[in-house]
């Protein structure tokens, strides 16, 4: 389901979400069990593990990082998710419509709800680097995407 939800939210086909080592499908070939699948034919595993494994959070991060990075790369040419951002330019201000629209879009696409004020505030911290200078908009887009898509809310809902 994580694969399907990410695919739908980021408008990427499942096979476009993530590959390991350039050729292995992240979900089917590498992280299947960690992400809640199972392997009845190969290993006689007839049911998924009852609880997330130790490496589940890391597997989630890898898949989400790859998927968000791919989405940002594609939005340079054909915008689908980060429509309010000029990805080649600096990240917008925290008070800008571009920031609000981007965060709203991520929450609606990934969590099917509007963000609350505290969540805007947290994500606004990603607009600037450690010196307080605006980061590139594409970096903000990727960071915000990964942050929201690896929350426990996205994992468990």
């Amino acid at each position: 389901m994580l694969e399907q939800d990410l695919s739908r939210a980021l408008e990427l086909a499942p096979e476009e979400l993530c590959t390991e080592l350039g050729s292995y499908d992240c979900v089917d070939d590498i992280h299947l069990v960690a992400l809640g699948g199972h392997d009845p034919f190969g290993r006689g595993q007839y049911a998924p593990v009852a609880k997330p494994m130790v490496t589940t959070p890391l597997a989630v991060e890898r898949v989400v990082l790859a998927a968000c990075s791919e989405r940002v790369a594609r939005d340079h040419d054909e915008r689908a998710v980060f429509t309010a951002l000029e990805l080649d330019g600096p990240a917008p201000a925290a008070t800008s419509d571009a920031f609000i629209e981007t965060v709203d879009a991520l929450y609606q696409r990934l969590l099917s709800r509007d963000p609350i004020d505290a969540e805007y505030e947290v994500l606004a911290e990603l607009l600037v680097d450690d010196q307080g200078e605006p980061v590139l908009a594409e970096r903000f887009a990727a960071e915000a995407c990964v942050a929201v898509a690896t929350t426990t809310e996205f994992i468990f809902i």
Partner: protein
Amino acid sequence: MSKTTSCSRRRMLAGLGGLVGAAALGAALPPRRAAAEETDTTVDPADRRLLFVVCASGGASLIDSFLPVSVDEVPDGVDASTLNVYPSELIAQPGASTIRCVRPIPDTSFLTPGYAIETFLEAHYESMTVLTHEVTSVNHNVAQKRAMTGAGINGGRTIAEAVSARYGLGMPLANCNMGYDGYLEPGTDRYLPSHARAEVILNPRTYALSTHGSRGITSPLDEASFERVRAARGRLDQVSPFGITYRDSPLRQDYVRARDEVGPQLESMDAITKLMLLDADGPEAAQLGLSPMLDTLRATFPQLDSDIWQQQSALSFLLSFFGLSCANTVALEFNPSFEGDDLVGAPLAFDYSHVLHRPSQSVMWGRTLQVVDGLVKLLQSFDYLGDPALGKMWDRSLIYVATDFGRDKNRPFGSEMFGTGHHLNNGSLLLSPMLQGNRVFGGVDPSTLLTYGFDRQTGAPEPGTLMREGDVYSLVAQAMGVDFPGRRDMSAVLAG
């Protein structure tokens, strides 16, 4: 492979509320285990022990490996031609070994023989302990699971879970299971500490990738940027309505602990490099290193790059050597295995005995023992954690060759090529310096080929008695320093 899962994210959520309640109830109940050994402190590396469960899937028969009976030993009045006995020239007893074995048989049909049982016995008889038992199921799945749980003698806890509960706190991947079918199933002890739950590994060659959140993934975010994201994600979890509502859910807490504590531990230990067995090309691979032990492993396991069985064994060694785990389970799979055009692993593993009993037993025992041989040699060669002060890994290791059950003891009149069904009666092979080596405990009735038991305190054979799955489990537990209510005293089998 299946992604249709009963462990969906939404089902996990549905369990959250219930788990909160269960946690509250659990707090009011007395703990099941006094469990002095299950404290919340880590075990000093010097005191750790290492378990390797090598699963000979499908029914590895001891009377076709280390408890053979020769034609000459069958009593008068019993028809040897209908018993699965071997010509005396096919039975070997090398040097000072008190254990015997079946030599390579002359005809293995279309199965390709490799490593010989006899070669293993010659090399390892001093470390080998053979004990008889009779199991309680001839259903593969049920029998396999009972081989792991001792038929439930320890509250449903598998022996790997029990060892991990005892020694695994602080190890990020204490209990790694690369098993098959029933060997892969978790135990049923609801009080099992979370650090002892199995990490299921399907693909040992690429498992290393699961131990790092970002390295090797093509992204505009560098590692510093990724850490910023993680920090922001943690704050989002703290302020979100979901995070607040389910803050105390044990399931969510478990996930967050793995994410915020174990994940960084794996990354700081550089597990992604230490465990990497896939020598890949391409820009992504360029970001990744290869296990520093790869050359050694390739020398030990010649088919490491193509044979998942050898990959499992290699990974189990790496996980133990680097202090990532204390219990590893590997298993023959039921799919056939090839080396080029040679069929080196029978379809259904040992269970191909239904069709070709002796060829399957001979070839699959060889295939099993080849990796045990490699594992023992590695454990005997390397200091634990690479620290000479901790001694050789072997000094703290136990290898339990688990199997489902035995095979039928009869054969069609005079036949060398026949099929067998499942049989409850069998035995087990274990190797450890913590056990009495070069010993057989129990025996075989040459008139029936049924094994019989032994006295648990003296080790004396006792015809007419039977050992059970719980005896094998108790022995492994006792040797590994794992106590539990109802553990049988197997002192006779322990090293002095």
